[in-house]
């Protein structure tokens, strides 16, 4: 019961963490543009946080290179479950125009699992908001799965299966 309320609350006000992972800034400023007037996602309760421990949705822009993959992995691990990763921009999906550059590994999905892909170079704020909304649907799915698993555990008195 309590978990259901938690899931609902999280769905109503998801907090997001944004990490620039070697992008050209184009997508980053569009992510920020989503938070400012005109687009203003804060009216839906979406808040940008600087702390990965507070976040539900992880927005990643740009390609992964040899140095920042550790930072990316680290941030991903710190976000509590359930979590949704949204990769933004052509270079976040596949490497885009940079895919042949020597220090580029490729898209974000080479390092962490990605749930939603938002294309565009740079992706428009409308597309990013759309991606976050899609991500929320996945988030609900993940939260419900986690809930049913832990509920079953409780009934059968099995040892807690931490994900």
């Amino acid at each position, binding site marked *: 019961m309590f978990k259901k309320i938690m899931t609902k609350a999280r769905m109503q006000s998801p907090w997001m963490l944004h990490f620039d992972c070697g992008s050209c800034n184009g997508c980053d400023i569009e992510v920020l543009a989503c938070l400012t007037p005109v687009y203003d996602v804060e009216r839906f309760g979406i808040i940008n946080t600087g702390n990965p421990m507070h976040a539900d949705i992880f927005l990643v822009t740009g390609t992964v290179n*040899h140095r920042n993959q550790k930072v990316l992995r680290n941030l991903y691990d710190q976000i509590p479950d359930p979590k949704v990763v949204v990769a933004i921009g052509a270079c976040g999906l596949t490497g885009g125009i940079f895919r042949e550059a*020597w*220090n580029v590994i490729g898209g974000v999905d080479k390092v962490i699992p990605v749930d939603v892909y938002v294309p565009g170079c740079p992706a428009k704020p409308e597309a990013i908001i759309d991606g976050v909304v899609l991500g929320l649907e996945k988030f609900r799915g993940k939260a419900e799965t986690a809930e049913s698993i832990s509920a079953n555990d409780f009934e059968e008195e099995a040892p807690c299966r931490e994900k």
Partner: protein
Amino acid sequence: MQGEVMCISPDNLLGETARMKVERYRFVTLSCVEISETQVEILYHFDREFQLKHLRLTISKDSSVPSISPVYFAAFLVENEIQDLFGIRFHGLVIDYDRTLYLEEDVKTMPFCKYVAVQKTPESNEEKAP
């Protein structure tokens, strides 16, 4: 290329840059170009009231170049970058990242060199900046 170009050798590099400093030239940047399998060319760009002046230094890849960062502090960043990307060693750097500005510690290749076959890696790693 706009601006005056002057060819120099590693011996008078520091003297020439010190002269530039006295003449109130500002440091712009260095450009490193690989010109053959064994040689690279380093261009030192300076500017004074939009008048450019370039020093052209041609050296072999395994040699070590005196750093101009004691004269022009701003040069340390680009010298570290060349150190990373071309494997050219600079000695006397004010802040030496020791080839970790862009690269991870375990990388021993020179990413910007076209002729990868050059077997200079062990040597150039030995002669680290003092």
